[in-house]
């Protein structure tokens, strides 16, 4: 299907999504250099072809070459996928900026925002590097399902058609589709902010509040996400797509979702610290909730669900009271033309 030399790809970040993307790229015929900081994992992948901590017993494609050397991973790659936790993003991107060349394509798949600034990753890339050919990958993508070969799709957004074309070529397979978009900020924010609603969804399920309540949460949640995203320059319709509503639906329903499991724990009245310890992985939604609450308050964007959840996370409010407060707010018009920012 893909004649000519194989596509050279670097995947940065050895978590579950990074491992999954590396595997997908290799399956689609690419030569993948897979960078991570952890030496033991590099050795494990090299010797056993597994990344037990994140993807269990799944056998990773043989053409994946793990490494601890970022420069060596990036050298000669046509496409660089950045899949590190958002808390590590700026440091890794700065390092990447020192080795990447101007014709290399960089696509990030980070569903989170930066602490303090609330910037999306594309903004961080712009501040730290001279990278121009940049894209973002996001969508309803539960890693274990994709590794199992179940059908799924994602979105790649970029201002550069070439970025989208190369990312599509690198990832598309018989059970994985890649849609194109040019709304970078919309796709980034859809992916990051849905994690907030995922936590809330876990809590609502844990409380046994029923399916109507969950649907209510999800639709008002997407309205809230869209309000923030449009405020930051996104297109409204992007939030109705795979990277918006699509991702929200899956994260709010799937028991695989870490953020959802955080919500379940909160509903049981457990402490956030204990839940996160037991999870053993990063739940981006916890960080994102706090960041978005601060930014939204500062910039005057109305986000009642996010604000209530942030207080629950900080143990200022219990989940039941948060739900009661949200239900007691005066109801306003659901849809007001194209305007999502209430006056």
């Amino acid at each position, binding site marked *: 299907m893909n004649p000519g030399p194989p596509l050279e790809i670097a995947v940065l970040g050895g978590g579950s999504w990074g491992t999954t993307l590396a595997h997908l790229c290799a399956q689609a015929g690419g030569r993948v250099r897979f960078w991570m900081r952890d030496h033991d994992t590099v050795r494990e992948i090299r010797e056993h072809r597994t990344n037990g901590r994140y993807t269990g017993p799944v056998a990773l494609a043989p053409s994946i070459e793990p490494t601890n050397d970022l420069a060596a991973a990036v050298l000669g790659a046509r496409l660089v996928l950045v899949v590190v936790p958002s808390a590590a993003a700026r440091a890794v991107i*700065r390092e990447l*900026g*020192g080795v990447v*060349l*101007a*014709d290399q394509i960089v696509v990030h798949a980070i569903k989170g925002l930066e602490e303090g600034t609330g910037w999306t990753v594309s903004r961080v890339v712009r*501040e*730290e*590097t*001279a990278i*121009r050919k940049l894209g973002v990958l996001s969508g309803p993508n539960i890693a274990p399902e994709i590794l199992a070969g179940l059908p799924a799709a994602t979105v790649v957004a970029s*201002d*550069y*058609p*070439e970025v989208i074309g190369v990312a599509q070529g690198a990832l598309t397979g018989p059970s994985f589709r890649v849609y194109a978009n040019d709304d970078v900020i919309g796709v980034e924010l859809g992916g990051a902010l849905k994690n907030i609603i995922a936590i809330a969804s876990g809590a609502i399920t844990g409380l046994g509040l029923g399916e109507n309540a969950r649907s209510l949460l999800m639709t008002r949640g997407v309205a809230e996400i869209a309000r923030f995203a449009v405020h930051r320059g996104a297109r409204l319709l992007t939030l109705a797509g795979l990277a918006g509503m699509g991702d929200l639906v899956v994260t709010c329903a799937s028991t695989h979702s870490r953020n959802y499991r955080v919500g379940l724990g909160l509903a049981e009245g457990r402490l956030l610290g204990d839940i996160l310890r037991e999870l053993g992985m990063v739940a981006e939604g916890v960080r994102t909730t706090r960041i978005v609450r601060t930014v939204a308050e500062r910039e005057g964007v109305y986000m009642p669900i996010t604000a209530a959840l942030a207080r629950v996370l900080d143990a200022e409010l219990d989940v039941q009271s948060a739900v009661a407060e949200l239900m007691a707010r005066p109801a306003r018009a659901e849809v007001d033309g194209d305007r999502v920012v209430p006056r």
Partner: protein
Amino acid sequence: MADSIDELTIRREAAHRSGDESVARARTGEEALEETLNDCLYHAERRARVRPLDDAEARVVDWAREAIQSRDPARLEAATYALCEHYASEIGGDFNPRMFALASWLAPGFLSLLLSATSLPRLLLEGLKREDLDRRLVIGGAVDQVARLARTGTLICTPTHASHMDSLVIGYALQRVGIARFVYGAGKNLFANPILGFFLKHLGTYKVDRLKAEQLYKRTLKNYCVATLTRGLSNIFFPGGTRSRSGAIEQELKLGLLGTGLEAYILNLKAHSERPGLFIVPTTISYHVVLEAETLIDDYLRDEGQSRYIIDDDEVSRPARVAQFVTTLLNMEGQIHVRFGRALDPFGNTVDDEGRSCDPHGRVIDARRYVVGTDGHPVLDPARDRQYTRELGTAIIEGFHRNNAVLPTHLTCFAIMQALAEQSGERDLYRMLRSRRVTDGLDAADIMARTERLLGVIRQKRQAGQLEASPDLDGDADRIVAAAERTLGFYHAPPPVERRGDRIYVRQPALVYYYRNRLAGYGLDSPAFLEPRPRKGNRR
């Protein structure tokens, strides 16, 4: 080099490249030549209703019409090239690269020429010496870098645009930092202006007819610029496309002309040029008072649909106003500030003094790689290059903000509008400008306090490199407000701001708003409804 280039080769190249591009587009099925020519005919006929076409244009338009009727591919191509040649010769017009040694014209001082044109005896008697002019024009910023880069590559100076005086000011400033050769385009309407036209005809300016909306004309204009750039001729582009109506620094740029820098860069690389570097210099020009302020803000405040893209009846065509402006300039202690920002590459990265592109941490990068195709050779790619140019535009706007020299008139007017917005209780710009507060006056002590507060913020931002403050802001609020009141009142009548005892009266709120807007976009404390909005689309 530049001296041996004559206008004819530039013209010819521009026409050929435009013709070639059109033929190539027809071959790939993007746009048939019939469509290209029909677009030209349509716009020519529209223009003919207002003013008859000149003979030369009428002739090529006839050919185009006959070619379309004949459906003969050879004739369609010939007519396309003929139109391109016509446009190119019109654009070239009086332009003569051998003559553009501005220095010889500017040596006696362009303003003294200006003054003789206004025949104001008093000013002539005072005499305007070169030294006066030097004192009146403060050139700052990356001056050394600009001078160095002009020797190693080709410059595109991109200034903020507030006034028709800008062309003269920037030309003079470039000449003073040692760049005597450059070209720029000016609206065809300006050539008809009694004062400006005189200079433009002699300064080696090419002509831009903003009434010509046909794609083929725009393509030829673009290629004309590219041809001058690939020959190493530095250019001046006003990237906002037109003078700022609101008084604010440009928030949106015209990317078409800006993109010629990247195109020239790629062509240079393809031709293995020895000096392929193209450097874009965001430049700010700050005036205490702006010659055309009244007309511009009046145009901005009209109903959206009525504002004009081309204004041909403003202060610059009224000798008495020009004279008053020059008098203000000479009699006030204030100066015109020109600041060169750090130079950029065509992708929006800063460049070091050797012309090497750098990332935000100052790490040198190889910019040629931005434009290589999969085979490793440089290649033009319109979709990709448009996006690069957009990134350049963002970097230019940042450069504008960082190099904007804040003057007493800007700061004082900002403080006054802030007070007016709060105390009028209005939430609408137009109502606020007409509010009773305007006539009732504002508390002077309050304005001083606000000015003092803003001054603190501005000094902080200056420390952080987010803007520039002129030395005129070194004093305290009392002196700053007094200086602003004096300068505004000297040029504008009635005085826009007038202090009487402990009250400050706003006589011309629209003008105060205009000068205030120069500080828009910095996140200074001000209600959102005061923020000027960019104009949408190309309006006439």
